[in-house]
């Protein structure tokens, strides 16, 4: 039993290969990071988003006023009013404060549905792609049904039937984003399933669960993740849109879409104050979009 104590040539070779593989996989992320660093637009977007994230997390400390405390005598002040940097809204509440607090719900409602849909959609999509046959048929044909609705319409239909509320809106948006994620997950999984190393793993006796966990997920999560990040921008616009229609958050809760709606009547008095919440949605959404594009290029994901 010499091999137990001193490695044979074959084992030594394997060990070297394993080390090289580790170095390569390290090299992949290092390469991604190197490409990202050379992409000023993506870095700038990431910085803007990080800054926004910090301001809304620390909103209670940063906000100069109470987000709910209004006053009839200082309604609709202009931008630049002393003490009210971004003016006041139709009930005399400080705009800067409400924008800071409003970001919390807008971000939450923009990211949660995509995160939920990512988990559910990846599970179903990988299952459909890996299992094939009838399971694939069942999952993909059900997906086709939801593809027969334009996304805005589906979100409005579901949350309109369920009634207004944050939970209902999140549920509706999650349902909207599950089908596209399933499609992407299924197509990348089908691509990976037929590669040689999966056959090799199967031949070496690995169980289906192990193959999925070790060989499939490692290769499909990246592309699905990049695709999901591109949905955050759409989701944020849709979530705020639902609130704008009165289907998401309810007053007096601060949320960018809802604020935009309640300030709609104020466009004749203080137009530039009224459009501020929408500008916040726009900046967030465009940054997420550009970030996702940058990630896609840096991670060399096709499609």
């Amino acid at each position, binding site marked *: 039993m010499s091999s137990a104590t001193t490695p044979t040539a074959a084992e030594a070779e394997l060990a070297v290969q394993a080390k090289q593989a580790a170095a390569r996989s390290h090299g992949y992320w290092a390469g991604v990071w190197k490409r990202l660093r050379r992409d000023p637009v993506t870095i700038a977007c990431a910085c803007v988003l990080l800054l926004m994230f910090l301001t809304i997390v620390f909103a209670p400390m940063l906000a100069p006023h109470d987000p709910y405390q209004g006053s009839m005598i200082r309604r609709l002040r202009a931008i630049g009013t002393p003490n009210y940097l971004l003016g006041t809204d139709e009930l005399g509440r400080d705009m800067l404060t409400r924008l800071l607090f409003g970001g919390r719900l807008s971000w939450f409602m923009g990211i949660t549905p995509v995160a939920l849909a990512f988990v559910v959609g990846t599970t179903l999509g990988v299952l459909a792609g890996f299992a094939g046959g009838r399971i694939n048929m069942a999952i993909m044909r059900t997906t086709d049904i*939801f593809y027969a609705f334009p996304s805005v319409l589906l979100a409005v239909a579901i949350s309109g*039937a369920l*009634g207004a509320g944050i939970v209902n809106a999140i549920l509706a948006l999650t349902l909207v984003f599950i089908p596209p994620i399933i499609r992407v997950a299924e197509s990348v999984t089908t691509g990976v399933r037929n590669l040689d190393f999966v056959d090799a793993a199967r031949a070496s006796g690995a169980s289906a669960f192990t193959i999925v966990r070790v060989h499939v997920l490692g290769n499909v999560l990246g592309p699905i993740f990049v695709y999901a990040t591109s949905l955050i921008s759409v989701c944020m616009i849709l979530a705020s849109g639902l609130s704008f*229609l009165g289907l998401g958050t309810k007053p007096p809760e601060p949320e960018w879409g809802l604020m935009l709606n309640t300030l709609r009547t104020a466009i004749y008095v203080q137009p530039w104050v009224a*459009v501020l919440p*929408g500008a916040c949605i726009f900046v967030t959404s465009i940054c*997420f979009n550009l970030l996702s594009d940058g990630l896609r290029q840096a991670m060399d994901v096709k499609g």
Partner: protein
Amino acid sequence: MFFYLIRRILYAVPIALAVGFVCFMLVQIAPGDPINAIVPPDAPGDVVEQVRREYGLDKPLPVQFGLWLMKVVQGDLGRSLATGRSVWSDLSGAIVNTLRLAIIASLIGFTLGCVLGGLAGTFRGSFIDRAAVGIAVAGVSVPHYWLGMVLVVLFSVQLNWLPAMGAGPGGSSEWDWNWEHVQHLVLPAVTLAVIPMGIVTRTVRGIIAEIMSQEFVTALRGKGLTRGGIFLHVVKNAAPNALAVMGLQLGYLMGGSILVETVFSWPGTGLLLNNAIFQRDLPVLQGTILVLAMFFVALNLAVDLVQTALDPRIKRA
């Protein structure tokens, strides 16, 4: 080819049925007894029971779906809770308005998208390319309901050039192709055009760049063909895919116009939906969504068929 067409048309039938089922379920998933979606909450008990029997709501769900489907096929979408009028009578007028808006918006969006995308794809890496990509990203990232408000602030409130809402002078609903009416169309159509413009720019740029890098283009150049001649070849190759994307975008516009119609009080399906949501008028909600979704299914089918007919490379047996 012929069998593909038949198969594709037959495949649309189960999809349409399933879409109908989803719409049917909308009333079922609504909180509370679905009967409340049909009779007003203050109706006396015996009336409620009578309506329940009439609508077959005392029967099991699959039977109810069958009954509902029979009615829908005959064009009976139920009655509005708020107005008591039949849903179809309100909907038919609104659809015409939405179609008018969506078609004008898609004409604007597709033209700009094709021009920008074509230029960007042809002159890859140039200043035009970067500008087009920037415009496209902004177009798909902008919350269009907000853009609508900004346009109203600029062109209605500040400059006073264009009306801020409605579809005709004095809120009239009669349409005519004169400036009195068309000026009401300008802002909502431009607002609605921004998203398809972004998407079409991106798509066309990708398609053109892909084709330009193919060998046959080099061969054409080598043959001494002029720029215009090469351009014609490229367009011929790009058209089927580009048209498919645009066709679907028209469908998304129909469904997505709810927010823009709300901003501009445009009397289309979006405003109808918005009012239905506000008054919890479920029959109107259900009927409108059903018709819009069916339109989208039909459009999907049409796009597939046209694409197959246009592109001899697609051999779908």
